[in-house]
């Protein structure tokens, strides 16, 4: 195997943290190479350097034996390096063809480009209509836009940053077929993920990053998922303990909940019905953009709905806003930590006030009790092991995991009867994720009804009692989580969206 890309001693520091510390590895032509690491291990910084978005402080790279130091992405693209981003670099209000043209150095005229898009999408089994607006596409289709954008440039090296986080299991297997075909044609693929099973099925080699350093290099097929996890985290993690109890009475009942989308590219909720019992965790799975935010908003009261659509122990509460719902112990924690669950520039004390004013009695006739608020913030910090110098610090100064612990802890400590969380461990390090899942299990154990909306199927299988899937704003009937196979879950999630017709040509 000849090395296509050789990375030697790449180092890049940010204020207060060395994101990459003398990272070295190499990729051969036609190799699918995994870059494995936790959130914050430095994977993103590393690929940004390879793609020319960030310049290294020290170290260097060679591409096919020649020095390679892209000053900007267009230089990387010219050298044959293409990248599919985790948070898509797409433009909602532009068409598929326009989006693809923007990612190319010298795009052909629009008409020819559309024809080429059709041709490539046929070859690789990724059907796509060049004239559609990207904002109207599903998450899987949007990823196809990114991939085709890369493929049109005949890349020698294709970087894929967490590509499967937005796909159903069926879509994942189609993507893998595409990637294997590309590799067979000689394209090297740098595959970034923290999903261990995927890496074991797909990748030829793996380089493992921890706190900015390469800690190990291995052939993933020869290792177990537990081995890989240990290399990645640096310690064995306990899976959350759950004591099987029998659920109590129905606490929250949703019937025929429909909600038209408020934004041009949003998702409408369609006739959603389910119920949750005391002591039970209902897991709601689904690919990004299928109505998760909208469902949370309807349950938290941010978007009021018809009164009877949501009932708490039989009492209609659909029309209540967030504050009245908090008063009756219906609490929520949205997905976006900075800017939705918490105000980035405000202190943790102020952020504690944000949702806890009512239940913790932090305001009397509108006048605020700052000492009590501070004490509550301190309690959250202590009970949930939030690493911060103190409650006076701004929310944005905390790491993702610590802020998420604060956000979840803030709700849990308010003794909810119903707690709805969306993506509780998204972008959170493994230790914090385990702590958050344990807190949710404990909360259910203590008798609360918990709804966990998540795109992480492993997480849902680990903690939920029943599972339902959200697909294009519709919710499947919940089924007991135990015994569900990946295949069944995939079909509940909508299978391979519009892809039945497609098959990868050999």
């Amino acid at each position, binding site marked *: 195997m000849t090395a296509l890309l050789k990375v030697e001693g790449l*180092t890049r*520091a*940010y*204020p*207060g*943290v*060395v994101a990459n510390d003398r990272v070295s590895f190499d990729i051969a032509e036609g190799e699918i190479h995994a870059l494995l690491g936790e959130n914050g291990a430095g994977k993103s910084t590393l690929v940004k350097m390879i793609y020319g978005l960030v310049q290294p*402080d*020290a170290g260097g790279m060679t591409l096919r034996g020649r020095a390679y130091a892209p000053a900007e992405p267009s230089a990387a693209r010219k050298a044959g390096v293409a990248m599919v981003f985790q948070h898509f670099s797409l433009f909602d209000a532009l068409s598929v063809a326009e989006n693809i043209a923007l990612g190319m150095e010298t795009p052909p005229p629009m008409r020819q480009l559309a024809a080429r898009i059709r041709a490539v999408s046929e070859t690789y089994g990724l059907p796509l209509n060049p004239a559609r607006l990207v904002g109207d596409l599903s998450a899987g289709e949007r990823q196809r836009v990114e991939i085709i954008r890369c493929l049109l440039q005949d890349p020698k090296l294709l970087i894929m940053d967490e590509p499967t986080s937005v796909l159903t299991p069926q879509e994942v297997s189609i993507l893998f077929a595409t990637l294997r075909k590309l590799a067979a044609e000689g394209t090297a693929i740098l595959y970034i993920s923290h999903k261990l099973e995927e890496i074991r099925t797909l990748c030829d080699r793996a380089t493992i990053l921890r706190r900015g350093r390469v800690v190990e290099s291995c052939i993933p097929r020869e290792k177990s998922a537990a081995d890989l996890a240990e290399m990645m985290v640096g310690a064995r993690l306990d899976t959350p303990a759950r004591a099987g109890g029998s659920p109590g009475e129905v606490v929250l009942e949703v019937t025929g909940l429909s909600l038209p989308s408020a934004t041009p590219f949003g998702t409408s909720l369609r006739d959603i019905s389910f119920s949750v019992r005391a002591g039970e965790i209902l897991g709601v799975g689904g690919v990004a953009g299928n109505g998760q935010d909208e469902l949370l908003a309807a349950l*938290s*009261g*941010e978007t009021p709905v018809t009164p009877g659509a949501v009932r708490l122990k039989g009492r209609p509460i659909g029309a209540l*806003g*967030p*504050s009245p719902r*908090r008063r009756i112990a219906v609490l*929520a924690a*949205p997905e*976006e930590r*900075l*800017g*939705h*669950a*918490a*105000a*980035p*520039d*405000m202190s943790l004390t*102020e952020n504690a*006030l*944000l*949702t806890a*004013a009512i239940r913790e009695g932090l*305001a009397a006739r*509108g*006048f*605020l009790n*700052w000492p009590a608020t501070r004490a509550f913030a301190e309690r959250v910090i202590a009970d949930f092991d939030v690493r911060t110098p103190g409650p006076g*610090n*701004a929310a*944005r*100064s905390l790491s993702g995991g610590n802020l998420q612990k604060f956000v979840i802890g803030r709700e849990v400590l308010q003794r909810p009867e119903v707690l709805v969380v969306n993506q509780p461990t998204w972008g959170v390090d493994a230790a914090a994720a385990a702590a958050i899942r344990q807190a949710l299990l404990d909360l259910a154990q203590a008798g609360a009804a918990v709804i966990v909306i998540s795109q992480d199927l492993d997480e849902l299988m680990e903690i939920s009692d029943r599972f339902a899937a959200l697909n294009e704003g519709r919710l499947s009937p919940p089924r007991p989580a135990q015994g569900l196979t990946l295949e069944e879950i995939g079909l509940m999630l909508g299978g391979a969206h519009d892809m039945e017709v497609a098959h990868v040509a050999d």
Partner: protein
Amino acid sequence: MIRLEKRPQPSRIWTVATPVLAVALTMVAGGLMFAALGKDPVVAIRTIFWDPLFNEQFASYSRPQLLVKAGPLILIATGLSLGFRAGIWNIGAEGQYIMGALAGAGVALALYPLDAWFLFPLMVLAGALGGWAWAMIPAILKTRFRTNEILVSLLLVYVAEQVLAAMALGLMKNPEGGGFPGSRNLQHYPAAANTELIAGTGMHWGVAAAFIAVIAAYVMLTRHMLGFQIRLAGQSPRAARFAGVNPNALVLICLGLSGALAGLAGMFEVSGPAGRVNIGFNQGYGFTAIIVAFLGRLHPVGILLAGLLMALTYIGGELAQFMLGIPAAAIQAFQGMLLFFLLGVDVLSNYHIRLGRRRVA
């Protein structure tokens, strides 16, 4: 190379220091401008910032003027700052000021020559209501149709100016005025006059109202839920909705409050220092107050100081015009420059500025 690095949290020192730095930079740039006009920059700056307060010849006249000019600026800016903090941009305070003045004066002129203790309080109420009602137009259009409040509130200034003209030439024209435009002089109508409370200080009811507004705003912003919600809505609107803040209610409250305060300022002005309703009675206080609000960092105490400083530039500007022949427009440009510098140096409170290449930490 110069690079900007976002601070983990806003710098407290720079938050206070930036307005001072901006004023200093404006003095330098303004000095250059005065030099370009052929004036001695040092003398010009001294005439504007020093002489009105400390030159024995002028201070006796200028010092009271400081409060007279600062009163309306502080009153309006305090109201505007609430909206600005919440991301609600009322830039039509000038129009609300006019309408408040018209409503307040209208009550007095309608009841002339009634001599009753309740007349002045009634005028105060009418002034606040006039400004409030004018501000409700952009507020309701915003909540009902999501119409941009910046454009509507601003365009309404021009409409208010036309209403003012119509009043000065028609309904409110002084019947004993010999056909000249303009209303009766309220200063000569004791029951309606906003007189100096303490002789020789310039302190009138409007100034008192400004101080009360500053204190009330301070308490609200730091100790009250409404103030917290205003700050929250401005910093992260989604988090505010999640916290249960009703954005429409906030629009109505913020525009209403700022309109009412601007209306009050107009009413105190027309019944006090200005005396009468006339074309061009508004002197741009509503616009200058925007600068005052930002210079005071949208903080009540800051606004108090900024209002006094801005009033000083008005008085000093007049003095410079009189003594050195510096045109009034130069002061206006000077005030505009101050806002530029302020917005420019504000970067220091949220970002570190790093010089040279990054080193490995």
